[in-house]
Protein backbone atom coordinates (compact mmCIF):
# COMPACT_ATOMS: atom_id res chain seq x y z
CA UNK A 1 0.00 0.00 0.00
CA UNK A 2 1.02 3.59 -0.57
CA UNK A 3 0.40 6.85 1.13
CA UNK A 4 -0.18 9.79 -1.18
CA UNK A 5 0.37 13.14 0.44
CA UNK A 6 -0.73 16.16 -1.58
CA UNK A 7 -0.16 19.71 -0.44
CA UNK A 8 -2.56 21.98 -2.31
CA UNK A 9 -4.15 25.43 -2.19
CA UNK A 10 -6.94 25.53 0.43
CA UNK A 11 -9.35 26.88 -2.16
CA UNK A 12 -8.85 23.86 -4.34
CA UNK A 13 -9.89 21.33 -1.74
CA UNK A 14 -13.48 21.03 -2.87
CA UNK A 15 -12.47 20.59 -6.51
CA UNK A 16 -9.94 17.93 -5.59
CA UNK A 17 -12.46 16.18 -3.40
CA UNK A 18 -14.95 16.12 -6.30
CA UNK A 19 -12.34 14.83 -8.69
CA UNK A 20 -11.41 12.04 -6.30
CA UNK A 21 -15.02 11.15 -5.77
CA UNK A 22 -15.46 10.75 -9.50
CA UNK A 23 -12.78 8.07 -9.58
CA UNK A 24 -14.31 6.39 -6.56
CA UNK A 25 -11.78 7.54 -3.98
CA UNK A 26 -13.88 8.78 -1.06
CA UNK A 27 -11.55 8.18 1.86
CA UNK A 28 -8.99 10.74 2.87
CA UNK A 29 -7.62 12.78 5.75
CA UNK A 30 -7.22 16.55 5.58
CA UNK A 31 -4.85 18.74 7.60
CA UNK A 32 -4.56 22.48 7.68
CA UNK A 33 -0.88 23.32 7.23
CA UNK A 34 1.33 26.21 6.26
CA UNK A 35 4.07 25.98 3.75
CA UNK A 36 6.54 27.51 1.46
CA UNK A 37 8.39 26.32 -1.58
CA UNK A 38 8.93 28.27 -4.75
CA UNK A 39 6.21 30.59 -3.58
CA UNK A 40 7.88 32.70 -0.94
CA UNK A 41 6.14 34.36 1.98
CA UNK A 42 4.77 37.86 2.23
CA UNK A 43 5.74 40.85 4.30
CA UNK A 44 3.39 41.69 7.14
CA UNK A 45 3.18 44.74 9.33
CA UNK A 46 3.66 45.21 12.99
CA UNK A 47 2.45 48.69 13.70
CA UNK A 48 5.35 50.72 12.40
CA UNK A 49 7.74 47.94 11.52
CA UNK A 50 7.32 45.06 9.13
CA UNK A 51 8.00 41.41 9.45
CA UNK A 52 7.86 38.60 6.99
CA UNK A 53 5.44 35.78 7.37
CA UNK A 54 7.09 33.17 5.29
CA UNK A 55 4.35 30.63 5.34
CA UNK A 56 1.13 30.59 3.39
CA UNK A 57 -1.89 28.50 4.33
CA UNK A 58 -2.03 25.19 2.50
CA UNK A 59 -4.13 22.07 2.78
CA UNK A 60 -2.63 18.62 3.06
CA UNK A 61 -4.56 15.61 1.78
CA UNK A 62 -3.46 12.16 2.82
CA UNK A 63 -4.77 9.08 1.10
CA UNK A 64 -3.69 5.55 1.74
CA UNK A 65 -4.40 3.35 -1.28
CA UNK A 66 -3.40 0.24 -3.13
CA UNK A 67 -0.39 0.56 -5.39
CA UNK A 68 -2.54 0.14 -8.45
CA UNK A 69 -4.76 3.06 -7.60
CA UNK A 70 -1.89 5.48 -7.23
CA UNK A 71 -1.68 6.87 -10.73
CA UNK A 72 -5.38 7.55 -11.01
CA UNK A 73 -5.41 9.41 -7.75
CA UNK A 74 -2.37 11.49 -8.64
CA UNK A 75 -3.82 12.39 -12.00
CA UNK A 76 -7.13 13.39 -10.48
CA UNK A 77 -5.48 15.58 -7.87
CA UNK A 78 -3.19 17.22 -10.38
CA UNK A 79 -5.97 18.00 -12.82
CA UNK A 80 -8.15 19.53 -10.13
CA UNK A 81 -5.52 21.39 -8.14
CA UNK A 82 -3.54 23.02 -10.90
CA UNK A 83 -3.82 26.71 -11.65
CA UNK A 84 -0.45 27.06 -13.36
CA UNK A 85 0.74 29.63 -10.86
CA UNK A 86 3.57 29.14 -8.41
CA UNK A 87 2.16 27.69 -5.22
CA UNK A 88 0.05 24.90 -6.68
CA UNK A 89 1.75 22.41 -4.44
CA UNK A 90 3.38 19.02 -4.35
CA UNK A 91 2.52 15.37 -4.18
CA UNK A 92 4.67 12.92 -2.23
CA UNK A 93 4.30 9.13 -2.22
CA UNK A 94 5.63 6.73 0.39
CA UNK A 95 5.15 3.12 1.42
CA UNK A 96 2.71 1.97 4.03
CA UNK A 97 3.37 -1.46 5.46
CA UNK A 98 0.15 -2.08 7.28
CA UNK A 99 -3.38 -0.71 7.45
CA UNK A 100 -6.17 -1.59 9.85
CA UNK A 101 -9.78 -0.56 10.33
CA UNK A 102 -10.25 0.04 14.03
CA UNK A 103 -13.91 -0.89 14.00
CA UNK A 104 -13.67 -4.31 12.37
CA UNK A 105 -9.97 -5.13 12.63
CA UNK A 106 -9.94 -5.72 8.88
CA UNK A 107 -6.40 -5.45 7.64
CA UNK A 108 -4.55 -4.45 4.50
CA UNK A 109 -6.36 -3.27 1.41
CA UNK A 110 -9.61 -4.60 2.83
CA UNK A 111 -9.50 -1.85 5.42
CA UNK A 112 -9.21 0.87 2.82
CA UNK A 113 -12.52 0.21 1.13
Amino acid sequence: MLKIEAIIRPDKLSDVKDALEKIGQNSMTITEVEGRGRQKGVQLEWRVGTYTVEFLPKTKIEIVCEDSEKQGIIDAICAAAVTGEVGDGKIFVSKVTEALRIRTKEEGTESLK
Partner: protein
Amino acid sequence: MNSAINAGDTAWVLMSAALVLLMTPAVGFFYAGMVRKKNAISTLTMSFVVLALIAVQWILYGYSISFGPDVGGVIGSLKWAGLAGVGQAANTVYAPTIPHLAFMLFQMMFAAIAVALIVGSVVERIKFSAFLVFALAWATLVYDPLAHWIWGSGGWLKNLGYIDFAGGTVIHISAGVSALALVFVLGKRKGYGADNMEPHNIPHVIMGAALLWFGWFGFNGGSALAAGGLAASAIVATTASGAVAGLVWMLFTWRSRKPSALGFVTGAVVGLAAVTQGAGYITPGAALVIGIVAAFCSYGAVLLRMRLRIDESLDVLGCHGIGGIVGAILTGVFASTAVNPAGANGLLYGNPGQFMIQTLGAVVTIVFCFSATWVIAKVIDVTMGLRITDNEEVVGLDMSQHAETAYSLR
Protein backbone atom coordinates in the same frame (compact mmCIF):
# COMPACT_ATOMS: atom_id res chain seq x y z
CA MET B 1 -26.47 76.49 27.21
CA ASN B 2 -30.00 76.82 25.99
CA SER B 3 -32.44 76.50 28.86
CA ALA B 4 -34.67 74.32 26.68
CA ILE B 5 -32.14 71.49 26.77
CA ASN B 6 -33.58 68.50 28.62
CA ALA B 7 -30.98 66.39 30.41
CA GLY B 8 -33.00 63.18 30.13
CA ASP B 9 -33.49 63.57 26.39
CA THR B 10 -29.84 64.47 25.94
CA ALA B 11 -28.65 61.49 27.96
CA TRP B 12 -30.83 59.26 25.81
CA VAL B 13 -29.68 60.59 22.47
CA LEU B 14 -26.00 60.58 23.42
CA MET B 15 -26.35 57.03 24.65
CA SER B 16 -28.19 56.11 21.48
CA ALA B 17 -25.36 57.60 19.45
CA ALA B 18 -22.93 55.37 21.35
CA LEU B 19 -25.13 52.36 20.63
CA VAL B 20 -25.24 53.10 16.92
CA LEU B 21 -21.50 53.75 16.89
CA LEU B 22 -20.97 50.21 18.10
CA MET B 23 -23.11 48.87 15.26
CA THR B 24 -20.52 49.80 12.66
CA PRO B 25 -17.79 47.48 13.97
CA ALA B 26 -20.57 45.02 14.87
CA VAL B 27 -21.54 44.80 11.22
CA GLY B 28 -17.89 44.06 10.60
CA PHE B 29 -18.03 41.01 12.87
CA PHE B 30 -21.38 39.95 11.45
CA TYR B 31 -19.86 39.97 7.97
CA ALA B 32 -16.34 38.80 8.81
CA GLY B 33 -17.59 35.60 10.37
CA MET B 34 -19.26 34.72 7.07
CA VAL B 35 -16.22 35.09 4.84
CA ARG B 36 -13.23 32.83 4.51
CA LYS B 37 -10.46 33.13 7.07
CA LYS B 38 -8.12 34.77 4.63
CA ASN B 39 -10.46 37.73 4.24
CA ALA B 40 -11.46 38.26 7.86
CA ILE B 41 -9.32 41.31 8.55
CA SER B 42 -10.24 42.89 5.25
CA THR B 43 -13.92 42.60 6.08
CA LEU B 44 -13.52 43.91 9.61
CA THR B 45 -11.33 46.76 8.51
CA MET B 46 -13.57 48.00 5.74
CA SER B 47 -16.47 48.24 8.16
CA PHE B 48 -14.52 49.89 10.91
CA VAL B 49 -12.53 52.35 8.80
CA VAL B 50 -15.77 53.64 7.36
CA LEU B 51 -16.63 54.92 10.80
CA ALA B 52 -13.53 57.10 10.89
CA LEU B 53 -13.82 58.18 7.29
CA ILE B 54 -17.44 59.22 7.54
CA ALA B 55 -16.93 60.91 10.91
CA VAL B 56 -14.43 63.25 9.30
CA GLN B 57 -16.53 63.72 6.16
CA TRP B 58 -19.61 64.42 8.26
CA ILE B 59 -17.87 67.10 10.31
CA LEU B 60 -16.25 68.73 7.32
CA TYR B 61 -19.29 68.90 5.04
CA GLY B 62 -21.51 65.83 5.16
CA TYR B 63 -23.77 67.07 7.90
CA SER B 64 -24.11 70.42 6.22
CA ILE B 65 -25.21 69.08 2.85
CA SER B 66 -27.58 66.62 4.52
CA PHE B 67 -29.22 68.76 7.17
CA GLY B 68 -27.99 72.28 6.47
CA PRO B 69 -30.17 75.06 5.10
CA ASP B 70 -32.17 73.71 2.19
CA VAL B 71 -31.32 74.49 -1.43
CA GLY B 72 -34.23 73.75 -3.73
CA GLY B 73 -35.47 70.74 -1.80
CA VAL B 74 -32.62 68.58 -3.03
CA ILE B 75 -29.55 69.34 -0.96
CA GLY B 76 -28.36 71.26 2.06
CA SER B 77 -26.05 74.21 1.65
CA LEU B 78 -22.48 74.37 2.93
CA LYS B 79 -23.36 76.92 5.60
CA TRP B 80 -22.83 74.35 8.37
CA ALA B 81 -19.60 73.01 6.90
CA GLY B 82 -17.01 72.37 9.58
CA LEU B 83 -19.92 72.42 12.01
CA ALA B 84 -20.13 76.21 11.78
CA GLY B 85 -23.07 77.27 13.88
CA VAL B 86 -23.68 73.74 15.13
CA GLY B 87 -23.30 74.17 18.85
CA GLN B 88 -24.38 73.21 22.31
CA ALA B 89 -27.74 74.93 22.00
CA ALA B 90 -30.65 73.07 20.49
CA ASN B 91 -31.68 73.33 16.86
CA THR B 92 -35.38 73.78 17.36
CA VAL B 93 -36.30 72.48 13.92
CA TYR B 94 -34.69 69.10 14.28
CA ALA B 95 -34.67 68.41 18.00
CA PRO B 96 -35.77 71.14 20.37
CA THR B 97 -34.69 69.57 23.66
CA ILE B 98 -31.16 68.34 22.94
CA PRO B 99 -27.93 70.08 21.91
CA HIS B 100 -27.57 70.54 18.18
CA LEU B 101 -24.21 68.76 18.44
CA ALA B 102 -25.96 65.72 19.88
CA PHE B 103 -28.35 65.58 16.94
CA MET B 104 -25.43 65.98 14.52
CA LEU B 105 -23.53 63.17 16.26
CA PHE B 106 -26.47 60.79 16.24
CA GLN B 107 -26.93 61.39 12.51
CA MET B 108 -23.21 60.87 11.93
CA MET B 109 -23.53 57.33 13.20
CA PHE B 110 -26.34 56.66 10.73
CA ALA B 111 -24.26 57.91 7.83
CA ALA B 112 -21.39 55.64 8.90
CA ILE B 113 -23.40 52.47 9.27
CA ALA B 114 -25.16 52.95 5.93
CA VAL B 115 -21.80 52.72 4.19
CA ALA B 116 -20.62 49.85 6.37
CA LEU B 117 -23.68 47.79 5.41
CA ILE B 118 -22.64 47.85 1.76
CA VAL B 119 -19.39 46.07 2.61
CA GLY B 120 -21.32 42.80 2.75
CA SER B 121 -21.75 42.66 -1.00
CA VAL B 122 -18.17 43.25 -2.03
CA VAL B 123 -16.15 41.24 0.44
CA GLU B 124 -13.30 38.99 -0.64
CA ARG B 125 -12.49 40.84 -3.87
CA ILE B 126 -12.66 44.64 -3.72
CA LYS B 127 -9.49 46.73 -3.71
CA PHE B 128 -9.14 48.52 -0.39
CA SER B 129 -8.14 51.86 -1.88
CA ALA B 130 -11.03 51.71 -4.33
CA PHE B 131 -13.39 50.90 -1.51
CA LEU B 132 -12.32 53.97 0.41
CA VAL B 133 -12.89 56.17 -2.63
CA PHE B 134 -16.25 54.53 -3.21
CA ALA B 135 -17.25 55.01 0.41
CA LEU B 136 -16.50 58.70 0.29
CA ALA B 137 -18.19 59.22 -3.05
CA TRP B 138 -21.26 57.22 -2.11
CA ALA B 139 -21.69 59.02 1.19
CA THR B 140 -21.41 62.37 -0.55
CA LEU B 141 -23.38 61.72 -3.71
CA VAL B 142 -25.97 59.19 -2.61
CA TYR B 143 -26.44 59.13 1.15
CA ASP B 144 -26.22 62.82 1.92
CA PRO B 145 -28.72 63.94 -0.75
CA LEU B 146 -31.12 61.13 0.14
CA ALA B 147 -30.95 62.02 3.81
CA HIS B 148 -31.71 65.59 2.87
CA TRP B 149 -34.74 64.64 0.77
CA ILE B 150 -36.28 62.56 3.51
CA TRP B 151 -35.08 64.08 6.76
CA GLY B 152 -33.61 67.48 5.93
CA SER B 153 -35.76 70.50 6.65
CA GLY B 154 -37.12 71.43 3.22
CA GLY B 155 -36.30 68.10 1.62
CA TRP B 156 -38.75 67.33 -1.17
CA LEU B 157 -39.80 63.87 -0.02
CA LYS B 158 -40.25 65.14 3.51
CA ASN B 159 -42.39 67.96 2.20
CA LEU B 160 -44.43 65.41 0.31
CA GLY B 161 -45.22 63.74 3.63
CA TYR B 162 -42.91 60.74 3.33
CA ILE B 163 -42.25 59.29 6.76
CA ASP B 164 -39.14 57.31 7.72
CA PHE B 165 -38.73 57.12 11.46
CA ALA B 166 -35.23 55.76 11.83
CA GLY B 167 -33.83 55.21 8.37
CA GLY B 168 -35.60 52.25 6.80
CA THR B 169 -35.31 54.05 3.48
CA VAL B 170 -32.38 56.37 4.10
CA ILE B 171 -30.16 53.58 5.36
CA HIS B 172 -31.51 50.12 4.63
CA ILE B 173 -33.09 50.47 1.20
CA SER B 174 -30.27 52.69 0.05
CA ALA B 175 -27.54 50.35 1.26
CA GLY B 176 -29.28 47.25 -0.07
CA VAL B 177 -29.97 48.58 -3.55
CA SER B 178 -26.56 50.20 -3.83
CA ALA B 179 -24.92 46.95 -2.84
CA LEU B 180 -26.53 45.26 -5.83
CA ALA B 181 -25.51 47.99 -8.24
CA LEU B 182 -21.95 47.85 -6.98
CA VAL B 183 -21.80 44.09 -7.45
CA PHE B 184 -22.98 44.40 -11.04
CA VAL B 185 -19.88 46.46 -11.75
CA LEU B 186 -17.51 44.53 -9.50
CA GLY B 187 -18.42 41.01 -10.57
CA LYS B 188 -18.43 37.66 -8.81
CA ARG B 189 -15.80 36.26 -6.54
CA LYS B 190 -13.32 33.96 -8.27
CA GLY B 191 -14.63 30.47 -7.79
CA TYR B 192 -18.13 31.58 -6.85
CA GLY B 193 -20.47 28.64 -7.19
CA ALA B 194 -17.57 26.19 -7.47
CA ASP B 195 -15.36 26.72 -4.43
CA ASN B 196 -16.57 26.08 -0.95
CA MET B 197 -17.11 29.48 0.63
CA GLU B 198 -18.42 28.47 4.01
CA PRO B 199 -18.45 30.97 6.87
CA HIS B 200 -15.22 30.68 8.80
CA ASN B 201 -16.38 31.74 12.26
CA ILE B 202 -20.04 31.60 13.23
CA PRO B 203 -19.47 32.87 16.78
CA HIS B 204 -18.25 36.11 15.19
CA VAL B 205 -21.49 36.30 13.23
CA ILE B 206 -23.52 35.77 16.39
CA MET B 207 -21.48 38.32 18.34
CA GLY B 208 -22.05 40.80 15.53
CA ALA B 209 -25.78 40.12 15.48
CA ALA B 210 -26.05 40.45 19.25
CA LEU B 211 -24.31 43.81 19.21
CA LEU B 212 -26.46 44.91 16.28
CA TRP B 213 -29.65 44.11 18.15
CA PHE B 214 -28.28 45.93 21.20
CA GLY B 215 -27.39 48.90 19.03
CA TRP B 216 -30.77 48.91 17.37
CA PHE B 217 -32.32 50.04 20.64
CA GLY B 218 -30.44 53.29 20.08
CA PHE B 219 -31.01 53.26 16.34
CA ASN B 220 -34.78 53.19 16.57
CA GLY B 221 -35.31 54.38 20.13
CA GLY B 222 -32.92 57.28 19.75
CA SER B 223 -34.76 58.41 16.66
CA ALA B 224 -37.52 59.64 18.95
CA LEU B 225 -34.92 62.26 19.90
CA ALA B 226 -36.44 62.30 23.37
CA ALA B 227 -36.70 59.83 26.23
CA GLY B 228 -40.40 59.24 26.58
CA GLY B 229 -43.29 57.10 25.50
CA LEU B 230 -42.42 57.29 21.84
CA ALA B 231 -38.91 55.97 22.37
CA ALA B 232 -40.29 53.12 24.48
CA SER B 233 -42.92 52.33 21.88
CA ALA B 234 -40.35 52.34 19.09
CA ILE B 235 -38.08 49.95 20.96
CA VAL B 236 -40.90 47.56 21.74
CA ALA B 237 -41.83 47.50 18.06
CA THR B 238 -38.19 46.94 17.19
CA THR B 239 -37.85 43.99 19.52
CA ALA B 240 -41.12 42.46 18.37
CA SER B 241 -40.20 42.55 14.70
CA GLY B 242 -36.62 41.37 15.18
CA ALA B 243 -37.71 38.51 17.40
CA VAL B 244 -40.47 37.19 15.21
CA ALA B 245 -38.48 37.53 11.99
CA GLY B 246 -35.60 35.61 13.54
CA LEU B 247 -37.92 32.80 14.54
CA VAL B 248 -39.62 32.67 11.14
CA TRP B 249 -36.31 32.55 9.25
CA MET B 250 -35.18 29.79 11.54
CA LEU B 251 -38.35 27.85 10.80
CA PHE B 252 -37.72 28.24 7.07
CA THR B 253 -34.26 26.76 7.41
CA TRP B 254 -35.73 24.05 9.62
CA ARG B 255 -38.29 23.11 7.01
CA SER B 256 -35.59 22.69 4.40
CA ARG B 257 -33.21 20.90 6.75
CA LYS B 258 -32.20 22.01 10.26
CA PRO B 259 -32.77 25.13 12.36
CA SER B 260 -29.78 27.22 11.40
CA ALA B 261 -28.04 29.66 13.74
CA LEU B 262 -27.09 31.70 10.72
CA GLY B 263 -30.71 31.66 9.61
CA PHE B 264 -31.88 32.86 12.98
CA VAL B 265 -29.54 35.83 13.19
CA THR B 266 -30.12 36.70 9.55
CA GLY B 267 -33.84 36.77 10.17
CA ALA B 268 -33.44 38.89 13.27
CA VAL B 269 -31.44 41.46 11.31
CA VAL B 270 -34.09 41.42 8.58
CA GLY B 271 -36.82 42.05 11.10
CA LEU B 272 -34.87 44.84 12.75
CA ALA B 273 -34.19 46.48 9.39
CA ALA B 274 -37.81 46.15 8.32
CA VAL B 275 -39.27 47.77 11.39
CA THR B 276 -36.87 50.69 11.29
CA GLN B 277 -38.99 52.81 9.01
CA GLY B 278 -42.16 52.45 11.00
CA ALA B 279 -40.89 51.87 14.53
CA GLY B 280 -42.16 55.17 15.85
CA TYR B 281 -45.49 55.10 14.04
CA ILE B 282 -46.86 51.61 14.63
CA THR B 283 -48.17 49.35 17.39
CA PRO B 284 -46.31 46.25 18.62
CA GLY B 285 -48.89 44.10 16.86
CA ALA B 286 -48.17 45.78 13.54
CA ALA B 287 -44.47 45.26 14.22
CA LEU B 288 -45.07 41.51 14.53
CA VAL B 289 -46.79 41.52 11.15
CA ILE B 290 -44.02 43.52 9.55
CA GLY B 291 -41.44 41.11 10.94
CA ILE B 292 -43.26 38.09 9.53
CA VAL B 293 -43.82 39.60 6.10
CA ALA B 294 -40.23 40.80 5.90
CA ALA B 295 -38.94 37.35 6.80
CA PHE B 296 -40.99 35.78 4.01
CA CYS B 297 -39.94 38.31 1.40
CA SER B 298 -36.29 38.32 2.32
CA TYR B 299 -36.08 34.54 2.43
CA GLY B 300 -37.56 34.46 -1.04
CA ALA B 301 -35.24 37.19 -2.24
CA VAL B 302 -32.13 35.39 -1.01
CA LEU B 303 -33.35 32.19 -2.67
CA LEU B 304 -33.93 34.02 -5.92
CA ARG B 305 -30.54 35.70 -5.83
CA MET B 306 -28.86 32.35 -5.40
CA ARG B 307 -30.83 30.89 -8.29
CA LEU B 308 -29.76 33.80 -10.46
CA ARG B 309 -26.20 33.15 -9.34
CA ILE B 310 -25.61 36.80 -8.51
CA ASP B 311 -22.72 37.07 -6.07
CA GLU B 312 -24.18 39.77 -3.85
CA SER B 313 -22.12 37.94 -1.36
CA LEU B 314 -23.65 38.42 2.07
CA ASP B 315 -27.12 39.50 0.92
CA VAL B 316 -27.17 43.17 1.75
CA LEU B 317 -30.08 43.57 -0.64
CA GLY B 318 -31.80 40.39 0.47
CA CYS B 319 -31.65 41.39 4.12
CA HIS B 320 -31.47 45.14 4.49
CA GLY B 321 -32.84 46.18 1.11
CA ILE B 322 -35.85 43.89 1.08
CA GLY B 323 -36.43 44.46 4.78
CA GLY B 324 -36.33 48.19 4.18
CA ILE B 325 -38.71 48.05 1.24
CA VAL B 326 -41.24 45.92 3.09
CA GLY B 327 -40.98 48.29 6.02
CA ALA B 328 -41.33 51.42 3.92
CA ILE B 329 -44.49 50.21 2.27
CA LEU B 330 -46.09 48.62 5.32
CA THR B 331 -45.49 51.82 7.24
CA GLY B 332 -47.94 53.26 4.73
CA VAL B 333 -50.36 50.62 5.91
CA PHE B 334 -49.87 50.50 9.65
CA ALA B 335 -48.82 54.02 10.64
CA SER B 336 -51.15 55.58 13.16
CA THR B 337 -51.32 59.02 14.67
CA ALA B 338 -52.58 57.36 17.83
CA VAL B 339 -49.05 56.06 18.28
CA ASN B 340 -47.34 59.21 17.10
CA PRO B 341 -49.30 62.39 16.51
CA ALA B 342 -46.37 63.81 14.57
CA GLY B 343 -46.64 60.90 12.14
CA ALA B 344 -49.46 60.04 9.78
CA ASN B 345 -52.26 57.55 9.39
CA GLY B 346 -51.74 54.68 6.97
CA LEU B 347 -54.03 52.65 4.75
CA LEU B 348 -55.43 50.73 7.68
CA TYR B 349 -56.45 53.91 9.35
CA GLY B 350 -58.25 55.19 6.30
CA ASN B 351 -55.47 57.05 4.58
CA PRO B 352 -54.54 55.45 1.26
CA GLY B 353 -52.65 58.60 0.34
CA GLN B 354 -49.91 57.78 2.81
CA PHE B 355 -49.58 54.34 1.27
CA MET B 356 -49.07 55.94 -2.12
CA ILE B 357 -46.52 58.35 -0.76
CA GLN B 358 -44.57 55.57 0.95
CA THR B 359 -44.55 53.48 -2.20
CA LEU B 360 -43.46 56.42 -4.27
CA GLY B 361 -40.66 57.28 -1.87
CA ALA B 362 -39.40 53.71 -1.89
CA VAL B 363 -39.42 53.54 -5.67
CA VAL B 364 -37.64 56.87 -6.00
CA THR B 365 -34.99 55.72 -3.56
CA ILE B 366 -34.47 52.43 -5.38
CA VAL B 367 -34.08 54.09 -8.76
CA PHE B 368 -31.86 56.87 -7.48
CA CYS B 369 -29.57 54.68 -5.41
CA PHE B 370 -29.21 52.02 -8.05
CA SER B 371 -28.33 54.38 -10.87
CA ALA B 372 -26.16 56.76 -8.91
CA THR B 373 -24.21 53.91 -7.34
CA TRP B 374 -23.78 52.19 -10.68
CA VAL B 375 -22.30 55.34 -12.16
CA ILE B 376 -19.97 55.90 -9.22
CA ALA B 377 -18.79 52.30 -9.36
CA LYS B 378 -18.21 52.45 -13.12
CA VAL B 379 -16.19 55.63 -12.84
CA ILE B 380 -14.00 54.15 -10.13
CA ASP B 381 -13.61 50.91 -12.05
CA VAL B 382 -12.53 52.68 -15.20
CA THR B 383 -10.15 55.06 -13.47
CA MET B 384 -8.45 53.23 -10.63
CA GLY B 385 -9.98 49.76 -10.86
CA LEU B 386 -12.41 48.36 -8.33
CA ARG B 387 -11.02 44.90 -8.14
CA ILE B 388 -7.85 43.24 -7.01
CA THR B 389 -5.91 40.87 -9.25
CA ASP B 390 -6.70 37.18 -9.40
CA ASN B 391 -3.55 36.33 -7.51
CA GLU B 392 -4.34 38.76 -4.75
CA GLU B 393 -7.80 37.25 -4.48
CA VAL B 394 -6.39 33.74 -4.21
CA VAL B 395 -3.95 34.70 -1.48
CA GLY B 396 -6.71 36.56 0.31
CA LEU B 397 -7.31 40.22 0.99
CA ASP B 398 -5.84 40.10 4.47
CA MET B 399 -2.45 39.46 3.06
CA SER B 400 -2.75 41.23 -0.23
CA GLN B 401 -4.46 44.40 0.97
CA HIS B 402 -3.33 44.70 4.57
CA ALA B 403 -0.26 42.47 4.89
CA GLU B 404 -1.77 40.88 7.99
CA THR B 405 -3.25 37.53 8.98
CA ALA B 406 -6.23 37.27 11.30
CA TYR B 407 -5.15 34.28 13.33
CA SER B 408 -1.65 33.02 13.83
CA LEU B 409 -1.00 29.35 14.41
CA ARG B 410 1.36 30.12 17.23
